[in-house]
């Protein structure tokens, strides 16, 4: 399955990707800014995300709350999200409303600051602090969002600190910070604009030039510090977190090859063999056969600099102790390290992933987001069309080479949640003995 892709770049540096599909009168507009929590300065954790909220507070021609209202009145859906290394904003609208969506995005890219006020900042700070309480502080296991990266990246590394931010850093954010962050990162040359769905390419290009063309090129953004990391953690790490939970839960993370590299695809398939759906090893062994886990899954962060993370996430049954859970998950990883995977297992994983890739292409919004992703990270949106092939090229040998290099005990970070008031033994002896791997 290949989707059509056309690209061009405006004089101000804005990179634009277009992908036509006229099966429904729907068009998606998707804008990625190449800035995320990694770009935050010291003492301003959470600022990239707070800033994302401020982008919905109006701009020179758009009133407070009007952004949401205009898109919804047009019959569209919209949102934004912040990640470690990017922030995105997106709308899917009826195709006759394409220009409105582009105008809204251009208006806030070009003319945000006149609409910024202290009161709006104060309110959004409250909203974000409530988002933190809701998603982390008042949520069982919620702190994994900030504990896991903190455990896997050194404190000097841009991926180490909290994306949602600390309450006190959020308190410190000021209008000056807004101005600076906007001038530095929200520039056309630091953004990718994707349009997918039902549009006329000549007309779309005219709209883009009309609304984004006048926005000036930015000054260059400050470089991130050196992101390079050793390929492994160079020794096991473990953090035990007593929490308001009834079931123990283990996040077992490995530093893994960055998204886009050949080894990434082997790592991703390895993760799928361990934790994608009910036929995966962890589910089959721990949930179905041994019945010591209630749930098991795996995921990757898909980071493109320094190191990616492959994470196994397993929740215990009520009668399973934290130690038993931890030991069982390590045993499964050891077994994979020792014996490798079979071609059959690779085939199962790749077939499932291929269907998922195709299913995701059904929606204009997902297509536009993928185009922005590959354009932002690699300057080449057409990579969206080669993902299935890259997965199909993965062999058992490549998965096993990845496992040997990255699943050893020296590259395991355990974040173990346990019910409060539980005694948990220090890292097990067996684990220490496996240190030679």
């Amino acid at each position: 399955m290949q989707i059509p892709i056309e690209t061009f770049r405006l004089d101000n540096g804005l990179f634009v990707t277009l992908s036509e599909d006229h099966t429904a009168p729907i068009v998606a507009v998707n804008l990625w800014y190449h800035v995320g929590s990694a770009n935050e300065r010291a003492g301003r954790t959470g600022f990239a995300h707070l800033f994302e909220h401020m982008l919905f507070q109006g701009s020179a021609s758009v009133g407070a709350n009007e952004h949401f209202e205009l898109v919804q009145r047009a019959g569209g859906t919209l949102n934004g999200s912040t990640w470690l290394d990017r922030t995105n904003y997106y709308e899917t609208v009826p195709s006759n409303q394409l220009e409105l969506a582009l105008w809204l995005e251009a208006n806030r890219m070009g003319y945000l600051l006149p609409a910024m006020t202290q009161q709006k900042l104060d309110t959004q700070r409250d909203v974000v602090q409530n988002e933190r309480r809701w998603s982390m502080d008042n949520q069982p296991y919620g702190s994994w969002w900030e504990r896991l990266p903190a455990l896997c990246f050194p404190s000097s590394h841009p991926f180490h600190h909290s994306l949602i931010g600390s309450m006190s850093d959020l308190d410190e954010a000021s209008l000056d910070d807004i101005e600076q962050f906007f001038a530095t990162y929200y520039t056309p040359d630091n953004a990718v604009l994707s349009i997918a769905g039902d549009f006329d390419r000549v007309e779309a290009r005219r709209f883009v030039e009309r609304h984004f063309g006048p926005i000036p090129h930015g000054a260059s953004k400050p470089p991130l510090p050196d992101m390079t990391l050793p390929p492994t953690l160079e020794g096991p790490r473990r953090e035990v977190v007593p929490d308001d939970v009834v079931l123990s839960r283990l996040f077992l993370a490995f530093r893994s090859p960055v998204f886009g590299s050949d080894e990434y695809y082997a790592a991703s398939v390895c993760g799928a063999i361990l934790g994608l759906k009910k036929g995966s090893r962890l589910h089959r062994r721990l949930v179905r056969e041994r019945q010591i886990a209630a749930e098991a899954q795996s995921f990757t962060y898909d980071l493109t600099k320094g190191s990616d993370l492959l994470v196994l996430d397993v929740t215990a049954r009520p009668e399973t102790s934290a130690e038993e859970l931890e030991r069982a998950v390590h045993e499964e990883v050891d077994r994979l390290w020792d014996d490798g995977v079979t071609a059959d297992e690779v085939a199962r994983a790749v077939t499932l992933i291929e269907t998922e890739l195709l299913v995701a292409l059904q929606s204009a919004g997902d297509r536009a987001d993928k185009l922005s992703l590959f354009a932002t990270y690699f300057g080449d949106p057409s990579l969206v069309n080669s993902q299935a092939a890259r997965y199909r090229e993965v062999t058992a040998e490549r998965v096993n080479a990845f496992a040997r290099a990255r699943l050893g005990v020296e590259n395991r970070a355990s974040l173990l949640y346990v019910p409060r008031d539980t005694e948990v033994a220090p890292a097990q002896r067996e684990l220490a003995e496996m240190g030679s791997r």
Partner: protein
Amino acid sequence: MTRTMMPKSEPAPRPTPTAPRSYHFPTFERHTLQNGMRLVVAPVPKLPLVSITAVVDAGASTEQEGQDGVAALTAQLLLEGAAGLDGAALTDRFERIGTSVEAHADWDAATVSLTVLAERLPEALALVRDLLRDPEFPDREVARLKDERLAELLQLHAEPGALADEQFSRAVYAATARYASPAGGSAPSVRALTRDLVRGFYAERYRPTTTTLVFAGDVSVERAIALASELMGDWQGDVGPMITRAVDAAPVTPIVRVVAKADAPQSELRIGHVGLPRRHPDYFDVTVMNAVLGGLFSSRINLNLREAHGYTYGAFSAFEWRRAAGPFVIQTAVKSDVTGAAVREILHEIERVRSAEITTEELTLATSYLDGVFPIRYETTAAIATALSNLVIHDLPEHFYDDYRQRVRGVTTESVLRAAQQHLHPEQLRILVVGDPAVVATPLAEIHGAPVEVVTPEGVEVAA
């Protein structure tokens, strides 16, 4: 700092939309096999994918008294052994053709659904046949899934939002109503389930005449009928008696109940009452009214609590549409020390929408949103299959989706006011809070002057 990056020119004026292109919900055809099993087929050849959903009239609402949770357990157990294959082997068969199958039961139906590459449809459907027609319900898997449900319930009780949902249902519905306890069953009811009860439920409810097979995607009507006839045509059996369970409301007192979570930084709030059945003649008026009240980001409740006051990350209202009257609920999570103030604002918004017509701007925001977003909702084969499943489950008019946008546009400010006055009942509101009683009890008591009942997460009353 100077704004060096402002463009020199003024921003372009707000654009006006061009002429809309027409959109039709995918056309679909119905067919009934000789054994009474029904088919609904929507050919959508956009990508080489097909979604199938088997809809069985075997939801939790059809459980006999004392068997709460048997519908959900039965549906899940379909995947755990059938036609001589154990659960692991079945899972493997599905995953090797690049799909994973979901089976679950909610209030009004059990569904078995998957999305698969069109070329693998026959294999996928043959497996679905096996698990619908020849499930084995092995003892070991019955015991395992019961244990997993019990673990899930423990987990939910640790999660303030899920705990609030569960306790809100208990506060709104009479203890005898099926809707008072979770669709998947509560701990005591799940413990009492047995393999025989599951087999009995399956034998009475899973029959060709209670099953509809929905296809959406890259498949023709002829092919879908041929495949279904070949695989399902000789399935026979009579359905058991239909059960209808009560959905009575609970007594209105106590109005305010706090589920104690000491030191909680936020309160999870649920405010509402028994709502309306899905096939209510005022469905569209109520849907638009709810959109204005709390259904959209730009709704009154969200703009008030989030954007004006910063009390919350989000606040929403919903009518939960079931065959019988599901709940109407306003839900949010607010910082603990503003719990009383947030409840006041919510009650105020309910009064306001009942006391005067909404503005034309509010009306058109809601109607143009619901109208315009309609095609966006049905971009995927899975979403189309779900929409068609709802047509079946609620026995909606054949042209429901064709007429949807016109019906939405027919709603007026007068009919919204009428819907608010007839279907929002301030005197019936229950207020359920999962939070820190030390912080929230007094401000909540001041709202109604009525005593605030404080309970443990297990529902046991404690002194306030």
